[in-house]
């Protein structure tokens, strides 16, 4: 859990394009972008179609995860490198997901698709073929996943970090501004949550800020890193980004991603809600 073990640069990826032990995966909510062009050798996972159960709201089962990775040609000893659009939101979600199922060596491409494109590095359109494997996942590690009851219990006691934009936190917007503003949830945030938008941890090109800047971001906003921390957003992908910053880059072990996030919390009957900045 450090920048050295969890993050790779675009140069590193460029140098490892033909490394057979490295599996590049583009993860997004819009895999049409993958079809238009992706990093050579990368396969693609769709955030919803591949990684959501579909019937119930949950991660796919251990057996389905094993089947997905086996069919994708990923071995237990593969170095999995994730990247995507949306400033790596869904790639960090997949990173968290690979950690949930105990994959040993998973890393994130700093800056994702955006930095790669802004650097005018090449994309290809052909999808690779990889020989199938027999992947064996571990039982879910729930030490990095928060559920609604512990979130409610954490109000006023533990660190709750709302990583959405200020306009969503205050209740002005119901969703990120690239989405239609229609939602079944009420607007607002979990009481006692601190609004530390995910975007404050990233540079404009999508790469992460320095460890010193990142630590100051959370500590300066009043987060006591000695206490347990729960991060949430709307559907759990932006909070996976902030979870990655805290858990992987800053090596803070007691951090959980609440992937139920506002779509769950904002639908619960009778729980406390706050509005305003």
């Amino acid at each position: 859990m450090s920048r050295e073990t969890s993050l790779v640069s675009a140069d590193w990826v460029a140098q490892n394009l033909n490394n057979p032990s490295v599996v590049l995966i583009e993860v997004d909510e819009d895999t049409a972008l993958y079809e238009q062009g992706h990093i050579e050798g990368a396969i693609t996972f769709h955030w919803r179609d591949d990684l959501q159960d579909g019937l119930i709201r949950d991660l796919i089962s251990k057996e389905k995860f094993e089947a997905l990775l086996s069919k994708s040609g990923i071995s237990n000893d593969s170095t999995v490198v994730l990247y995507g659009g949306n400033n790596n939101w869904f790639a960090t979600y997949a990173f968290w997901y690979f950690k949930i199922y105990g994959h040993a060596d998973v890393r994130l491409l700093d800056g994702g698709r955006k930095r790669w494109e802004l650097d005018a590095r090449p994309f290809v359109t052909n999808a690779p073929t990889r020989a199938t494997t027999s992947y064996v996942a571990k039982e879910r590690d729930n030490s990095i996943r928060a559920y609604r009851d512990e979130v409610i219990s954490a109000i006023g006691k533990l660190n709750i970090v709302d990583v959405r934009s200020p306009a969503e936190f205050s209740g002005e917007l119901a969703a990120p501004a690239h989405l239609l503003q229609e939602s079944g949830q009420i607007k607002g945030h979990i009481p006692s949550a601190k609004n530390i938008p995910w975007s404050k941890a990233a540079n404009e090109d999508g790469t992460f800020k320095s460890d010193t800047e990142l630590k100051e971001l959370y500590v300066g906003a009043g987060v006591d890193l000695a206490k347990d921390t729960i991060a949430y957003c709307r559907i759990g992908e932006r909070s996976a980004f902030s979870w990655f910053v805290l858990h992987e880059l800053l090596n803070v072990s007691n951090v959980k991603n609440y992937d139920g996030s506002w779509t769950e919390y904002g639908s619960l009957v009778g729980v406390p809600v706050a509005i305003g900045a």
Partner: protein
Amino acid sequence: MKTCGATPGGPDISGIDLTTQTVIQGVILKDGQEDGVPNGSPVGNAYVRLLDSTGEFTAEVPTNLDGQFRFFAAPGAWTLVILASGVREERKVIAAKGIPVDLVIEI
């Protein structure tokens, strides 16, 4: 879809309920003839960031193959930051419900 001779701008607005949505959209074009007129080809690999009135990041979208982008914001003052390889531009806009902000941005 944009057709030949159509007014350049963001994606087709039909089907969007403008009584409830505050739309900021547009198209990114290259300055084709270096005459200051945005008549060049669409930039389909740009990123558009939406910042709120305090300069805080609110959302980001990549442009589509036609160079277009769209945000659903709230009424008020916003700043767009356009990023492409070697390019960074800002545009300030005022958004309101009912009347979409539709921009043609040349880079």
